[in-house]
């Protein structure tokens, strides 16, 4: 997150698309933080008399089959839907950056082992790996986030390894080595901070995919569990109402997912370019 202050002032000088996307994301973040202040109802307040109501003054985005206010659920849902991908990426970054740095610094057999490991992970679709973990340990948000974090780690490791290899041949590293500094200290104290910008840019680009994967798991019933108002789960719960002609319960959270992912992709690609992330 060290990158954010560097990014924000520049947004105003960027194309309209980037500015609009940044505004959307900022609005979503505010909504998530201030959900209790903004939401007109409790997210789990059931009102069967108002089941499947359309948009109106009392329910701006209508209600679902149990009469829960969709706007309120959407605002509260933003909390899990936006925070969970960040945690997921943090897990992926912790594992991936450590492995990538280790491989780049040690070289030799350590590098071979890490590279083979990432290659093997690349040979499988990540989603299947995640589903296997869920099949074994059962669903839930924690399992989903950790499993997806593991699934995203190899790509982070591969990226970190490639940028770290370019970094450790620089002369400052040799200079520290000559001073008798240990490899661990050089890596953590000097190499890692220099890679941070570029790796953060890489993670920012992955955010959209992380959010989509988590939403998919929640939709399938493997991720967030009721009474959570996670957006993926909301889509699942709203799907049954579609055949009754009520589109809002499924489409409101669905559109929210799409809008956030689009905005993050627009801002993310732009920010990654700024942060010197190689693509």
């Amino acid at each position: 997150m060290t990158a954010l202050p560097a990014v924000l002032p520049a947004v105003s000088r960027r194309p309209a698309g980037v500015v609009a996307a940044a505004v959307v994301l900022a609005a979503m973040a505010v909504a998530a933080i201030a959900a209790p202040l903004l939401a007109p109802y409790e997210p789990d307040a059931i009102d069967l008399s108002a089941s499947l109501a359309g948009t109106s003054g009392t329910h701006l985005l209508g209600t679902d089959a149990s009469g829960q206010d969709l706007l309120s659920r959407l605002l509260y849902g933003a909390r899990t839907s936006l925070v969970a991908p960040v945690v997921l990426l943090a897990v992926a970054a912790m594992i991936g950056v450590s492995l990538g740095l280790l491989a780049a610094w040690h070289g030799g057999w350590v590098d071979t082992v890490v590279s083979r490991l990432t290659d093997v992970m690349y040979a499988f679709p990540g989603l299947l790996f995640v589903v296997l973990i869920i099949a074994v340990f059962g669903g839930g948000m924690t399992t989903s986030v950790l499993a997806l974090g593991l699934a995203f780690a190899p790509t982070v490791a591969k990226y970190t390894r490639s940028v770290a290899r370019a970094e450790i041949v620089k002369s400052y590293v040799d200079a520290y080595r000559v001073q008798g500094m240990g490899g661990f200290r050089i890596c953590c104290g000097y190499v890692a901070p220099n890679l941070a910008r570029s790796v953060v840019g890489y993670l920012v680009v992955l955010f959209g995919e992380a959010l989509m994967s988590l939403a998919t798991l929640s939709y399938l019933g493997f991720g967030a569990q009721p009474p959570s108002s996670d957006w993926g789960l909301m889509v699942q719960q709203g799907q049954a109402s579609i055949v009754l002609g009520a589109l809002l319960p499924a489409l409101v959270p669905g559109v929210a997912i799409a809008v956030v992912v689009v905005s993050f992709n627009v801002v993310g690609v732009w920010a990654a370019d700024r942060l010197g992330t190689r693509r």
Partner: protein
Amino acid sequence: MFPAAGRQVAGLLATLVVASFVIFGAVYAAPGDPAVFLAGGRDDLTPERLAVVREQYHLDEPFLAQYLHWLGNCLRLDLGRSFQYNDEVVDLLAARVPTTLALVAYATVLFVLFGVGAGVLGALRRGTWADSVLIGGTTLSASVPSFVAGIGLAAIFGVQLGWFPVTGSGEGFAGTLHHLTLPAVSMALGALAVISRVTRQTVVEAAGADHVLVARASGFPERQVVARHVLRNALAPIITMCGLVTAGMLAGTVAVETVFGLSGVGSLLVGAINGHDFPVAQAVLLLMVTGYIVITTAVDLAHPLLDARVKTARRVA
């Protein structure tokens, strides 16, 4: 070429062994008694039932022996019994594989046609408004998860307009096509961006090559120049990418089959996990991983046929 192909097939087998080992070994990662886990972990398990499971999975033997028994059974298409459906797993799969294959094939046709088409159009009309619209549109479509796209399409074209059925997989070729259109479109949408982007870039690169100018200077008609000297050269990377995306779609069926209530392999997997039917989940995962690895290896093997330089490079390597 043959030693190289042999190496790739050996790599395929090695990856399959690793995958099957992980899928089998996952049983032991689960908390508690593996026999209880494999039997569905229900409370009303009788000692006899557990004994049958122990017998079937050779749980009293060493771990490696269990794995080899299991692998041997898989190769003989004996995938165990489903506790949820009380049926042979292989029969369950056989009944559901055609739907999934039809869905993936249909989605592949769609994304190849429209993705490659959009990419070629964007490359040849680079910098025009059509190019910008294509880039914007495909980027947008890639930002919508397939289950959201599926629900949106079902709501609009299924429920509101009534053009397409929103559930089931239909009878006969026309019926299947009709039923699978919305699911296939929802899967293809996400692939459009990556395919059109790869196509656009490789076509732009191929069109900038000197030999294209030479062909043009030789007075060949523009269509011939584009077909034989631009598209032909861009083919290898495009086909590789299409193969990867198709392979990935095997896993993508999990979400889309659930949206449209299709009884394919993907929805079988979801049902198996929710019903703690681990033998079925194992079988489906093994099948999907095998399909994925086979497709990606096939694409790899096809590469030298499209670009002779690869063949030489591999022979030398």
